[in-house]
Every structure is written in C-alpha cells, then in structure tokens.
C-alpha cells in the first residue's frame, strides 16, 4: 500500500469527487461505496470525507434540484444513499480518542431532513466530543432526565425547516431558564434568513452557520475552559 501525505491524499480524494457525484445521482450505491472504502484505505482524513464528499454532494444535489435538473425523489434517494454511506465511517470514527466533553445533538421532526444534524453529530465526534444524537426534536424532558455523569457540556440543535423555529425557541427558552450555564448552539437551513446577532439577542443562543464555524466555536469553547 502506497502511503500518501495528508495534502496529496486530499488532492487525490478531490479527484474522485466528480465520479462519486455522478454515481450518487445514478443511484449506484456499489460504486459510491467502493469510492468511500478506497478513501478509507488511502487514510484520507475523515473530515475531508465528510466535508469534501458527503456535505459537498448534498449541497450539489440540493442545487440541482433547485435548478430543476433532478426530481425530489432523486434528491431523497441521494440523501438516503449518503446516510448509508456515512455508516461506513463509523467503525473508524468512534474508535478515535475522546476529549472528555459531552454534547447532545437534536434535529427537526421531519425524517428526510435529519442528515444535516447527523453530520453535525459526527463532526462533534471527529473533534473528540462524545456526542449523543437524539434523532428527534429536543425537549426539556431530555435534559431533566439526565444524571450528572451524563449531562451534556453543550447542546446543539439543527433545523432544516424554518416553520419549526418558533417551537424550538420555546424549548430553548425553557432549557435556558432551568440550565442557564449550559451553552447552546443552533444551525441548519432553517436559519438561512435569520440574522445572527438578532437571533443571539433574542434567544441568547449562538447561531453556527456551517462546519467550519462549528469547529471555530468548539476551539473557542476549549480556550474558555482552559482559562477558567
């Protein structure tokens, strides 16, 4: 097996992307699976696979749908295939060393729009956090039932559909009242038209736009903790 440097592995991975997207749009699971397995064999950084393949292809698929180039059905199948392909990374992802921080990630009620939250949850794991993914919308009850040992250090909620924002706001307010020290962040397509500072002022919850911003936020979080 030829070992590649990190940068050459990234370049090599990027060269696989056009074919991967074509296979995804052709619903060719076997070909997509072979590509992801090949990337794992080449020891391409998991972050690169998440952002350069899964996230990028979902954005491309979404854009093609908005341009009426593909059907909504095709978009759903591509999303489902991506969710399945992501599971190929789990054996590697969960064996990575932990940093001792716990996060709880929740998502909207709409089944077909949970993949964003799932990628966020996995990204937390990539950054060394132990992440509990709820696969459902967050309620106050989720936290009230937690033991001290299981209580999260941070709460994140991803939302795809903007009409669900008011319900989320109510829950966040309730949680903030009972657990004022618990940092909370939100993100997802639902917040595209929401102004960051207006949201922050209204709810006291930070709006994180993308995975890079999430990484920067978590880095700041660690710095604050070290400073305490």
């Amino acid at each position: 097996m030829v070992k590649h440097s990190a940068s050459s592995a990234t370049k090599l991975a990027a060269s696989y992307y056009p074919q991967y997207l074509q296979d995804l749009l052709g619903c060719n699971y076997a070909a997509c699976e072979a590509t992801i397995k090949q990337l794992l064999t080449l020891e391409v950084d998991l972050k690169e696979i998440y952002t350069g393949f899964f996230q990028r292809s979902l954005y491309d698929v979404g854009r093609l749908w908005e341009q009426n180039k593909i059907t909504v059905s095709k978009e759903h199948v591509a999303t489902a295939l991506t969710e399945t392909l992501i599971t190929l990374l789990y054996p590697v992802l969960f064996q990575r060393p932990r940093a001792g921080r716990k996060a709880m990630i929740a998502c909207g009620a709409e089944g077909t729009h949970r993949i964003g939250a799932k990628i966020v949850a996995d990204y937390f794991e990539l950054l060394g956090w132990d992440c509990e993914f709820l696969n459902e919308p967050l309620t106050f009850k989720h936290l009230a039932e937690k033991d001290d040992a299981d209580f999260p250090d941070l709460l994140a909620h991803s939302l795809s559909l903007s009409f669900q924002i008011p319900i989320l706001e109510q829950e966040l307010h309730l949680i903030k009242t009972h657990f004022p020290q618990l940092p909370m962040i939100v993100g997802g397509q639902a917040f595209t038209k929401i102004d960051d500072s207006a949201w922050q002022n209204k709810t006291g919850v930070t709006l994180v736009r993308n995975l890079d911003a999430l990484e920067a936020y978590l880095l700041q979080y660690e710095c604050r903790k070290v400073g305490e």
Partner: protein
Amino acid sequence: MSPKFAPCMIEYVWKQSEILGLLVSKDGLILEINGYTEQKLHPEVIGKNINQVFLFLPEGWHPELCLHRDNAELYAVATGNGHPENFLFLTFYADDTFLFLGQPPFEDTATNTTLLSSLTTDLTHISRQLEKKNAELKNANQVKNEFLGVIALDIRSAVSTISDAATMMADAGDAFTAEIQKALLDSIRDQSNFMRNLVTQLLDFRSIETGIISLHLESFNPLEIVNTTILYYQLMAKKKAINLHSNFPQDACSIAVADKQKFQQVLHHLCSNAIKFSFTGSSITFRSWWEEASFFVAIEDNGTGIAPGTLRSIFTPLRSSSTLGTTGERGTGLGLPISQKIMKAHGGKIRVKSELGKGSTFLVELPLKAHSQQ
C-alpha cells in the same frame, strides 16, 4: 381540446412517452407495441399472447375482463430485465381490437421513496448507535482487563506482605520482641482486611452489575445511621488527626423506609473516602436535613479534591486505577459506583461538587419511601 393536436398526442404516446402501449386482438394476441413497451419489455412480444406478458392472471386473460371497465386496473408485467413491474392500465376497445395504455403508479412510487428514505434514516441511526456502543464496549473491555491487572497486583502485594511477615515470625521464633511481633501481626491483619474488603467489593459489584440488587426495606431514622457512621470512623480519623464534625439538629427525627444496611454501606464508603483524601489535621463536616420527601446527608472535606476531567467518571466502574489517599491508602475504585447504584435502587442519588486542591462534597439523597429504579 382541439382535434388538431390529436396526431401529435398519438405521436407522443406511441413514440416518446413512458407509457406502455399494446394493441391486442380479441383472441389476446399482441399485434403492436409502442416505443416504451419495446424498451421496457421486448420487441419479440409481438405475436405472443397477452397471458405471457401480464402476470398473476390465474384464469387467463379474456376480453370480458376489460370490456365495460372505466377505471384503471393494476397489472404486473414481466419486464425485459427479469423484474416484474406494476402499471395502471386503461383499456379501450374498437374494431375488435383492445388498446392497453399502462402508466407507472407514480403516487405509489413517490410514497415508497419517502417511506424508504425515512426507514434509511432510522436504520442508519440504529447503525450509528450500535457502532458507538460497540466502540464503548471495546473500550470497556480494555479498561476491565487493565482493572483486573491492577487488582491482581494489589492482591499479590498483600499476599506477599502476609507471607513475608508470617515467614519472619516463624523463622525468628522467640527472637522478636513483643513490639515487633505486634507490628508484624498488625501488618498481617491490615493486609487481610484490605483483601477482604477488595473481595467484598468485587462481589458487591458483580451482584449489582448483573442486576441482582434486592432491597430489604425497613423503617429507621437515617440520622441515627449518620451518627453511628461518625462514631465508627472517629478512630480512623484520629490516626490522621482529622476532626469529624456534625452540623445538624440531633433531636430531629423522621423515619425512612429503606434498606438500612445498604444505606449504612454507602455512608461508610463515603466517610472512609473522605478520610482517605483528607490531609492530616483537616476536618470533615457532616450536614443532614429533610426536604420534601427525601433525607439528605452531605459529607464535606477539605482534601485533595477531584480534577474536572475525572469528576465525570468517578461513578463509572472499572476505571483502570483508583487514586491513592493522602497517606498512601489504597482502594479499588468500586466503592463510588456501588454506592451510586445502591442509592439509585432506592430512587435517590449521590451528587458531587469538587475542586482540585480544595476538597469535595458528596451529597446523598435518600427518598423517605424507597421506590426501586431498577
């Protein structure tokens, strides 16, 4: 619609659309097919009987099946790739010939796509949980192996001390003074006690982990147990010049229905832990109170405290090693997990606040009427 468009519509349906089109004689012979049927089935279906194309027609096809029928009928057809597919067929009759027009059940397909997407989401979620749990189990197994190694070393060290002391006494005969003999016997007793505690905790842990934790409920005043515990540990505390203070109204009385012995076991463990991690000459304070339907006891020390990173895992069993006390006291690291399990079995819990270098406070909550959480 204007008849002027009829030719282009026929052209579209017969050559471009994704609709099956078959012209069939009264006898059921396929006379002509459109472009999509040619692509979907096979060009050679022309001349065959419709029974060879339509599946699941147990009594065969006959014209009456289609005459006088206005609604579309769902039929499965054998496609060229070997997989059967369903189409909704409308049938028209003219000049002793049937025209079959079949369209895919679009609504059904869209519903199934949504359902399968949703199922995939749920299945991948389960897969995620399984993989995560699998990683945790692998890690737990590794920790367990390390823990067994530590226990084995502890036992070997204690057995060696006992063996050495016994050998020295046997070899020396009467040569040792009474003082030396007492020191050796003390050492044998201490090491034996250590091993007995170790084995007891391992057995307790095994019972609790396998779910065998039965509570023998009885009525008692929990404050009395706190007082007894303080008295019991006075001697041990005195050896490190530690003061045990109680700060609660002694005449207060409330009755709890709980497992007295197990509650005592929890207090014993927390008290010995507080002494173990307190510095010589410091003090430990016991506070007790009743609040709503629970009895609370807080044990507060000014000892070593616990690092924030460790705090979360102190109730987790089988950590690879337990910390030594301020004067080198050993432990198994099982006491806190066992105590937490006992309190949870009562419907209560143990909470902890700690600051490294400043000390710890363990707060025990005992519901006055135990309700098992198992």
